[in-house]
């Protein structure tokens, strides 16, 4: 699966920062210094760098199977090794041996593909983590994967999809949707079913979603973050996230992250009009005085996105090392 270089993935960068922002609310439930962060960080350990910047008290563990990527990670470590441990192993083996031992954790299953194996790993993890742990999962969400060259090939691909995911499909005989938004909703439903199967109503613990997004820096992706908590403490979790404008506590439709490409000068100019809660698209369009997409509707949609996520949107700049 090919994705653009990470520095060009602005929507993914926003998603990373929403996790950081979400953790601020998790701090209302438990002391963040009691948490350990586990992730499949990739060569640049970007999420670890961010986490260390905002929450240096959290212990971090990276899981990486590829030898060369592992070496590259060692080159990029953002902090001392007593804060960040780099494990060279595949996630399945890690999961088989993982024992939370009462330690709270934040897991980011940052996958690039979409397979039933990913759902199995998600379910295994939900069974294993301690109460008040945070689990984030990112999956490929590209409806075009299930379109064939002709009707026969499309039918074959749909059949394969149904066989592969039957156990977690809300309507096992339904075809995968052909548009991005509906496909993201379907994947969210599939994760909800996986969570309900693992932590069913007869168990004390429950998985509560806190946010979910879809974005496409190249191919479509879906990401869901949630908390495993006692059913009896559900209200406490809801209260902690109640005022967060990015919350999705009731499995609602995933929000889209589709931030516009704006120059630094444009961003600084728009800054004067932000925050802007009412008619943000129109206000920012008028502030700019020109269109940044094909028409007014699209321009305003992009600018609404900017208004919603501007605080999570990093500045990419040329730097001379």
């Amino acid at each position, binding site marked *: 699966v090919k994705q653009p270089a990470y520095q060009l993935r602005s929507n993914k960068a926003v998603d990373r920062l929403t996790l950081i922002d979400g953790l601020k609310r998790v701090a209302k439930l438990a002391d963040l210094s009691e948490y350990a962060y586990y992730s499949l960080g990739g060569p640049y350990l970007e999420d670890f760098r961010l986490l260390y910047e905002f929450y240096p008290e959290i212990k971090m563990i990276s899981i990486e199977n*590829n*030898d*060369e990527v592992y070496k590259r990670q060692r080159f990029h470590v953002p902090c001392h090794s007593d804060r960040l441990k780099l494990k060279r192993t595949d996630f*399945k083996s890690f999961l088989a041996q993982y024992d939370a031992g009462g330690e709270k954790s934040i897991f980011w299953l940052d996958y690039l593909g979409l*397979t*039933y*194996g990913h*759902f*199995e790993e998600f379910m295994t993890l939900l069974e294993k983590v301690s109460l008040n742990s945070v689990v984030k999962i990112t999956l490929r969400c590209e409806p075009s994967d299930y379109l064939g060259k002709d009707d026969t090939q499309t039918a074959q691909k749909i*059949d394969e999809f*149904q*066989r*592969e*995911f*039957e*156990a*977690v*499909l*809300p*309507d*096992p*005989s*339904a075809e995968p949707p052909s548009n991005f938004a509906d496909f993201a909703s379907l994947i969210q*439903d599939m994760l*909800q*079913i996986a969570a*309900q*199967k693992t932590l*069913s*109503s*007869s168990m004390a613990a*429950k998985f509560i979603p806190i946010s979910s997004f879809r974005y496409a820096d190249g191919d479509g992706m879906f990401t869901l973050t949630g908390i495993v908590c006692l059913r009896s403490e559900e209200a406490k979790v809801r209260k902690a996230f109640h005022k967060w404008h990015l919350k999705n506590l009731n499995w609602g439709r995933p929000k889209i992250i589709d931030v516009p490409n704006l120059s630094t000068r444009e961003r600084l100019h728009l800054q004067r009009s932000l925050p802007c809660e009412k008619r943000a698209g129109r206000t920012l369009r008028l502030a700019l005085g020109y269109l940044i997409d094909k028409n007014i509707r699209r321009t305003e949609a992009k600018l609404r996105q900017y208004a919603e996520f501007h605080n999570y949107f990093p500045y990419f700049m040329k730097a001379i090392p």
Partner: protein
Amino acid sequence: VQKERQRYEPVNAAPVKSFFVHMLTRDIKLEDAILDLLDNSVDGILRAKAGKKTSGSKTPYAGYQAEIEFAKDSFTISDNCGGIPWNLHDYAFRMGRMPDRSPDAPGSVGVYGIGMKRAIFKMGKRCLISTQSGQNAYDVDINPKWTDDENDWFIPVKPAKRMDGQDGTTLYIGDLYEGIASRFSEDAKAFKTELERMVATNYVFIIDKGFKVKINGDTVKPRPTRLIFDTKVTRTRKEVIRPYIFKARSDGVEVFLAVGFTRPIPSQDEIAEDQEEKKYSSLEAGWTVICNDRAVLYCDRTELTGWGEAGVPRYHTQFIAISGIVEFKADDPSKLPTTTTKRGVDASSTLFLQVKNKMREGMRIFTNYTNKWKTRPEDSKKQIEAGEPLSFEDIKAKSEDLVFGPTKTSLSRGEQFYPELPLPKRLQPNTRRICFNRRVEEVESVAEYLFEEADTDPSEVGEKCFDLMLKEALK
């Protein structure tokens, strides 16, 4: 002093209502209890159709449907399947079946007369059954007071008309038990998926024959198993992929069995990948057993259906392409080899054991073929794809044209069709399979070097390397 003699009065052995209400419901899963209610709908169709001419129709259940709706506070199943005739009330509402009761409509699956009551008591304390069958239209109301009263064994019945005027039954259950209510609300999505999967597998043949089942608004669409059947047989092309078929009629039970391939046999790579990570969350490999159109066992891959017994290998991903269906049909349901819950076969049934011999016999043909061709899956794929996937009913129809031979079985009128599958002409003593592992990055480097494409199939990369070296070696 003579001791006063203890007097022993007759003891009360009458059943206690709470036994039925609470104990009997423990050994059944909620999903199974709901399937019991669907069985009642199907039995209703058979009653409604009894005496009418439908033989030969491919869709004898067409026009009939059942709708299931569940929510946090209630469960409802509503059907248009003929309703409960008043003369059956003693069976329908009594706990258990009187021995002198006349048999049900031919071909039904209910034997013990407990399904509906058990399903109701499994879910909640209140139930309203509204039914219309011809001239009879009445409501039966079970309320929590009745459930708790040990002495009251009579349930009030009121005359009533159904809203839609159609013959059928609506069963509403309220005052749900806490555990049930939370499964219908907190686990609603997962529960619906599981229920839909169970309906799709258990009723695969009934739905295929026209019955419609809706769950919370969605119509259940099963995927019936289709076996590859190559019809293009000529004098020079006799060895083709067709299923093994066995049929018999014994003591009022008709048996029809077919086993064959559903897809091409897997490549070694597919087998290896499957061992690392499960590719499919559902598989159609294995045996499905049907009793009076109802699948009582679905895609079983254990000793129960002959895998790993008497010369048949244990199930392994290698045999992912092999599926079998065996159907038992009887007017008297007590003769069918199924368990009381209708969710499994009676493994000790003499009839089933006899048929199981034939299931193994058929399976051996296809496990043997798989073993013979496993090193040449591409050649085998062409043979399998030359055939057409046929449904069980189509196979039955096609079997009319096949030449059946006698078989050694104690089942009366047993006969079988033995397919002649293509087998490798020689056992290929001149080839060897080469298999080795190399690091991903190294394989990608060689692939890029040879094919300018890093993600070329590793076996292609290996083969190309060998061919290049062979050329060198032979210079």
